């Protein structure tokens, strides 16, 4: 017996506080228990928690724009999206520098696809531009080459841009180390250095070529022109041939004799949509590392100058889908309750031998493939199917207007009720089994009719079973995929079918992740509401 009157902590026999002794004794048990569940914990972590975390992350992640078009993203920030005009030439120039690299690395289509989710049409814009972006600045290339044929030599660019140490190191045997820029070039010709650096690294990495053997692509000339125009004295930093070549070019530019070429015109020539401010607005809007765009999209919203706004009516689909998924899952849950309750009741009140026999019948559907069962419903419900044939044969329905029971919501509800019914019956049964039949007798002895006894005494005690079954069925239903896909047609598909579509067909994983996240949040919210209203400890799964 513990001594209640004693003040201060209770001591164990060895004089230590009892609490600490107990904690020590329990720790070993806890560790052992933890070891036992460790494999499962690990499994769940790897196959469940991590993918969900990844999904949550994907739904907001948007690095691709910034990673692929770094200079454009910076340049476009100064442009006012509401000006109604296309951005200045510098932005196009930056786009040319970025895109020529992306095209070589074959990443331009991915940005195009990403932006296409937000503004349809951008994808093809990028695809076309990718093919021809290395021509942007071609005019400069020709003029430089005409000025001095040395400008057509890879060695010229090496002498201007390459780091002498790097040049020395590549002389040795083995693979060429990554291209290094010379400090001088970097300071004197910033844009051209950037462009050339990108060129050199890209052909090293993508083509396994050496920049010493390839003449650079046209945008590098454009950058060089741009630098020399901005700083005619840039040549002073260099020496020898490089200085001379740059001086000549700068002089030509200063004299106004070099014909200028606009990057913007080059792009607009590829596709006139490059002049469309909408395209640029999209690019600017989705330039950030993270975006709520997927979520807005999943909620039928879009970004606008005054914050998020509803999409035009003909583009809204997810709201309807979510609502339909919820309502149909609710309908499935209700029909499972209505059909399952009497079955569970009978099972619980039969002698256990008979009950076990019948239980096998309830579980039988589990032993056949889901696809087979769903296909069986197709056979049953289609217009030339068993049910329609029977109805026609009975004369209840005329041959010309057979009932449409499949490829619509009705078909989905019927097939899914059938498939999910065991999940309702089992928890109900296990709860009902624990309800002592003497309660009913007691109620009747107290004067209650059969119905009152059932409704006031038996039913409330079976509610935990209904609750558990409903949660199971509803949560399974809300994320169901195969059955709606097979028998749902267009009107009976669920949100999960849309998610699957984005995962495997449109490849818009961000949107799929956002939809999945919303689904998860809805389920958790409903669970929370259920806990508030009914109480989760009222749920008995067995």
């Amino acid at each position, binding site marked *: 017996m513990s001594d209640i009157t004693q003040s201060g902590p209770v001591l164990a026999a060895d004089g230590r506080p009892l609490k600490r002794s107990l904690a020590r004794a329990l720790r070993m048990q806890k560790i052992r228990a933890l070891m036992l569940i460790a494999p499962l914990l690990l499994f769940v972590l790897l196959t469940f928690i991590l993918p969900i975390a990844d999904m949550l992350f994907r739904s907001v992640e948007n690095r691709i724009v910034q990673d692929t078009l770094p200079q454009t993203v910076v340049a476009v920030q100064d442009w006012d999206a509401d000006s109604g005009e296309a951005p200045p030439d510098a932005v196009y120039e930056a786009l040319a520098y970025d895109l020529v690299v992306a095209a070589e690395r074959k990443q331009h289509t991915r940005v195009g696809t990403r932006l296409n989710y937000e503004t349809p049409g951008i994808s093809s814009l990028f695809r076309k531009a990718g093919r021809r972006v290395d021509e942007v600045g071609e005019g400069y290339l020709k003029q430089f080459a005409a000025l001095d044929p040395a400008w057509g030599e890879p060695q010229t660019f090496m002498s201007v841009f390459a780091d002498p140490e790097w040049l020395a190191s590549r002389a040795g045997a083995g693979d060429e180390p990554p291209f290094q820029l010379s400090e001088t070039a970097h300071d004197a010709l910033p844009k051209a250095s950037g462009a050339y650096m990108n060129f050199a690294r890209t052909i090293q990495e993508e083509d396994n070529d050496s920049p010493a053997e390839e003449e650079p692509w046209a945008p590098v000339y454009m950058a060089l022109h741009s630098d020399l125009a901005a700083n005619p004295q840039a040549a002073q930093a260099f020496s020898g041939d490089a200085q001379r070549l740059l001086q000549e070019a700068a002089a030509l530019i200063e004299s106004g004799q070099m014909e200028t070429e606009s990057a913007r015109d080059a792009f607009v020539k590829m596709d006139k949509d490059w002049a469309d401010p909408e395209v640029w607005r999209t690019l600017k809007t989705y330039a950030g590392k993270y975006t709520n765009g997927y979520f807005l999209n999943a909620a039928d919203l879009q970004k606008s100058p005054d914050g998020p706004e509803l999409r035009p009516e003909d583009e809204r689909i997810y709201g309807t889908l979510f609502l339909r998924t919820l309502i149909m899952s609710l309908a499935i849950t209700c029909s499972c309750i209505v059909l399952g309750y009497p079955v569970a009741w009978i099972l619980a009140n039969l002698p256990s031998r008979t009950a076990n026999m019948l239980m096998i019948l309830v579980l039988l559907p589990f032993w056949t493939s889901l696809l087979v069962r769903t296909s069986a419903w197709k056979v049953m419900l289609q217009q030339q199917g068993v049910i329609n044939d029977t109805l026609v044969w009975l004369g209840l329905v005329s041959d010309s207007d057979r009932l449409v029971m499949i490829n619509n919501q009705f078909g989905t509800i019927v097939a899914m009720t059938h498939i999910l019914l065991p999940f309702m019956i089992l928890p109900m049964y296990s709860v009902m089994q624990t309800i002592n039949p003497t309660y009913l007798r007691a109620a009747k002895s107290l004067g209650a009719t059969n119905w009152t006894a059932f409704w006031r005494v038996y039913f409330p*005690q079976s509610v935990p079973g209904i609750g558990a079954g409903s949660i199971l069925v509803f949560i399974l239903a809300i994320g169901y995929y195969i059955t709606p896909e097979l028998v749902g047609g267009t009107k009976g598909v669920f949100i999960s079918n849309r998610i699957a579509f984005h995962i495997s067909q449109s490849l818009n994983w961000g949107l799929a992740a956002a939809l999945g996240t919303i689904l998860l949040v809805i389920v958790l919210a409903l669970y929370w509401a259920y806990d508030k209203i009914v109480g989760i400890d009222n749920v008995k799964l067995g």
Partner: protein
Amino acid sequence: MADASNVDAFVEFERVQKSYDGENLVVKDLNLTMPKGEFLTMLGPSGSGKTTCLMMLAGFETATHGDIRLDGTSINNIPPHKRGIGMVFQNYALFPHMTIAENLSFPLEVRNMGKSEREEKVKRALDMVEMGAFGGRRPAQLSGGQQQRIALARALVFEPELVLMDEPLGALDKQLREKMQFEITHLAHRLGITVVYVTHDQTEALTMSDRVAVFDDGRIQQIAPPDQLYESPENSFVAQFIGENNTLEGTVKEIKNGIALVQLDDGELIDCKPVNVSQPGERTRVSIRPERVEYNKDRLQAGVHTLKAEVLEFIYMGDIFRTRLRVAGNDEFIIKTRNAPDQVRLQPGQQIEIGWLPEDCRALDA
């Protein structure tokens, strides 16, 4: 005993039989008549059909044959909820999802009683079982004894004239059980209700009842007030089942002046009161209560037959001494003596002579 014309009869079973499986009769030819206000206990070993009888009365089982009448009208075709019989179940069957007050209010609600009247009655019923402060609790928050009281209050709150109780104290510990035995009888008498009480505990049956019906093998073996049952068992089952009992087997030699001379199997002769024997030559089982056996020669009546006995064991039990003897080849012959100042304590191995009054020694069926 059953008599349809009996005007006093409140509950009547007439030639009632019951079979669950169509092969065995669980209740065989039950006849029973109870006047209003009686406290009747059905006592018997487990499986003897007591619960079945109770359930037939309550309407949860139908009699395979025979008639059950309540207050003169046959209730065979009246559903349970219309019988107006209060019932206390062994596991109490308090509705777990309702509070105590709601439990008590339930029978009143289904009778469409007004709210204020209901509350009034619930309060009175709770006070009656001294549980007034517990109305807001759930059954699971009460101890076994408290639940028992609530079950009792619920069975009484709608003022039934007949209350059935099926081993209501079976789950309680000994002390609580004795207290509740007293409370239940007290309440029943105060309210003047008729009670059919089922138990397998003979002490409970003897202390509580006006009459006890001893069940065995689907039949009533004897129905009588407790003292008669104890002192004048009508057959050897009742003698064995009620209280402690010594039996000796033998054959009737002669019956004369209401006294039967019985020769025991080892040849000795004793005098008995013939109960179930009528002629010489019949086998019989003789029953003597341990406290009616006398070994003090001074107190033995002159001229009665005595038996030799050897003391095997002496057990000191405080208020009484319990001594085990070997008598006529029976090693389990028990005698009980009061722990009085002048009482002799027998020693194991001692040879004594025992005897009794002929009327205390009953010659029953073999």
